[in-house]
């Protein structure tokens, strides 16, 4: 527990110190790299809420990541072209306000998660995996065939959206926004995992029959967890779109779902800070191995295989020890 606390503090410290150092030596690319790690970490934390705490192996979290991204893209596109998103029956205009975009991304992702969860949570195991994957792929093919927003080519947003009092085009200021959101998300997930709801979710994952016998409803617990998970991943998608100022159907692809899952597995499933470590490690590997060979994913695959076979608790498990065994 003590080790884990120090590891968490060190991770947050490094994540803050590195871009500050990059800023001091005028290396904006490295600041963007750190921001990317943070956005991926938030996406991983979202998946981890369903996978790690609820035992829900979703291979379709790209649906929420992509939806968050497209919420940003569509609203910003209409704001910069001065056209309404919708003219009838309600007039909905675009916006360049980050907080507004985040709130809409969170709300719509949670809503989508409730819809997907209401259907997929009636199944389990491989069926659950396949249904979540199918929903994400449906959205992927839908966006490919949606010419208004760039279809397969995607859509560029020329100016990053705004945040009151900050210049979001400045990499360090945009990093600060993402870092603050990461802290808020971590605090929320930490509190939620220790709340009566989080405890019941963990208990339900261990034994559904037993949790019913004390008056809890596993389906409701899982659905709530899935909605929270989707909302967090959707928020990450909106940030990712703003980071790149670009959206494309790739955000919905199964490769994106797989990458989000890799952050969780690399860092440690079920550990609040696990996906943060996983995302940082992923970016490090991408940066270092990517420089050695364009086939760096092969090395990443080998590392992932090693983690799954020999370090099931991920990076956190290796350093801070495995979580308690479940019966």
């Amino acid at each position: 527990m003590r080790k884990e606390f120090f590891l968490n503090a060190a991770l947050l410290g490094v994540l803050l110190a590195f871009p500050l150092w990059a800023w001091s030596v005028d290396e904006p690319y490295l600041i963007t790299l750190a921001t990317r790690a943070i956005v991926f970490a938030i996406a991983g934390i979202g998946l981890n809420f369903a996978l790690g705490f609820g035992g829900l192996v979703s291979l379709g979290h790209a649906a929420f990541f992509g939806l968050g991204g497209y919420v940003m893209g569509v609203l910003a596109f209409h704001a910069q072209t001065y056209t309404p998103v919708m003219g009838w029956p309600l007039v909905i205009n675009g916006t360049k306000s980050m907080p507004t975009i985040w709130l809409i991304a969170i709300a719509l992702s949670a809503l989508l998660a409730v819809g997907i969860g209401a259907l997929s949570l009636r199944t389990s195991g491989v069926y659950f995996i396949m249904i979540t994957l199918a929903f994400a792929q449906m959205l992927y093919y839908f966006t490919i065939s949606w010419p208004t927003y760039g279809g397969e080519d995607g859509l560029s947003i020329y100016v990053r959206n705004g945040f009151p009092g900050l210049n979001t085009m400045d990499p360090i200021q945009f990093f600060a926004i993402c870092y603050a959101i990461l802290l808020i998300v971590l605090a929320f997930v930490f509190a939620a995992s220790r709340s009566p709801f989080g405890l019941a979710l963990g208990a339900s994952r261990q034994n559904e029959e037993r949790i019913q016998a004390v008056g809890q409803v596993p389906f409701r617990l899982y659905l709530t967890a899935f909605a929270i998970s989707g909302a967090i991943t959707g928020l990450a998608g909106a940030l990712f779109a703003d980071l790149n100022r670009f959206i494309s159907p790739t955000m919905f692809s199964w490769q994106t779902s797989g990458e989000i899952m890799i952050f969780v597995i690399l860092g440690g499933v079920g550990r609040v800070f696990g996906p943060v470590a996983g995302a940082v490690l992923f970016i490090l590997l991408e940066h270092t191995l990517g420089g050695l060979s364009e086939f760096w994913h092969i090395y990443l695959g080998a590392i992932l295989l090693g983690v799954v076979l020999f370090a099931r608790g991920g990076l956190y498990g290796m350093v801070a020890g495995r979580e308690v065994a479940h019966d």
Partner: protein
Amino acid sequence: MSLLKLSNISAFYGASQALFDVHLSLEDGQVLAMMGRNGMGKSTTIKVICRLLKHRGGTTMFGGRDIKRLPAHKVARLGIGLVPEGRRCFTNLTVHENLIVAAQPGEWDFSAIATLFPRLEERKDQLSHSLSGGEQQMLAIGRALMTNPRLLILDEATEGLAPVVRNEIWDAIARLKTQTGMAILVIDKSIKELARVADTAVILEKGRSVWHGAFTELTPDITDRYLGV
């Protein structure tokens, strides 16, 4: 009116019938001992009461309400607290968390449980898998009490425990009976210990309720015939 009344219950595991016309009734504030050799349908009957197993025939009335079509969590919220066989604590949670997760509004809260089982107070931040068998059993009882039940069901609550711990558990059950007036359904093999607390008894054999009456009417002839003791 009985607090719990089972009439003509038949239940199946797949195609295999486990219960045949089981009858039993339990009054408010009384303790019912459910007895029988291994594999006679005691735990299956408990599962039927808690709606963890759907039964095909018969009626299950609790507090004057037919609970046959209710899901398990609603039955628990109606006031049936289960201490399952083999303790079955949530091993990934601490003692305190195991209790919190089951909490329903009522007089039973953590401090009331700690008064009944002071050992749980001492170990409240310990993961439940690190407790001794007796402590895990106390935790399982505490968890069921946290649902503030009108009926507490104990399935083999003292099985496999050391004599000193068994006594502690039986003392707690006796205290629950006298101090709270809670209805209790207890499954156990020890007739001597059951005699301390039970008002009535039901005996199951091959999935049928073959004897039902006051515990004091349980003669050696009956126990010899159905329990083989």
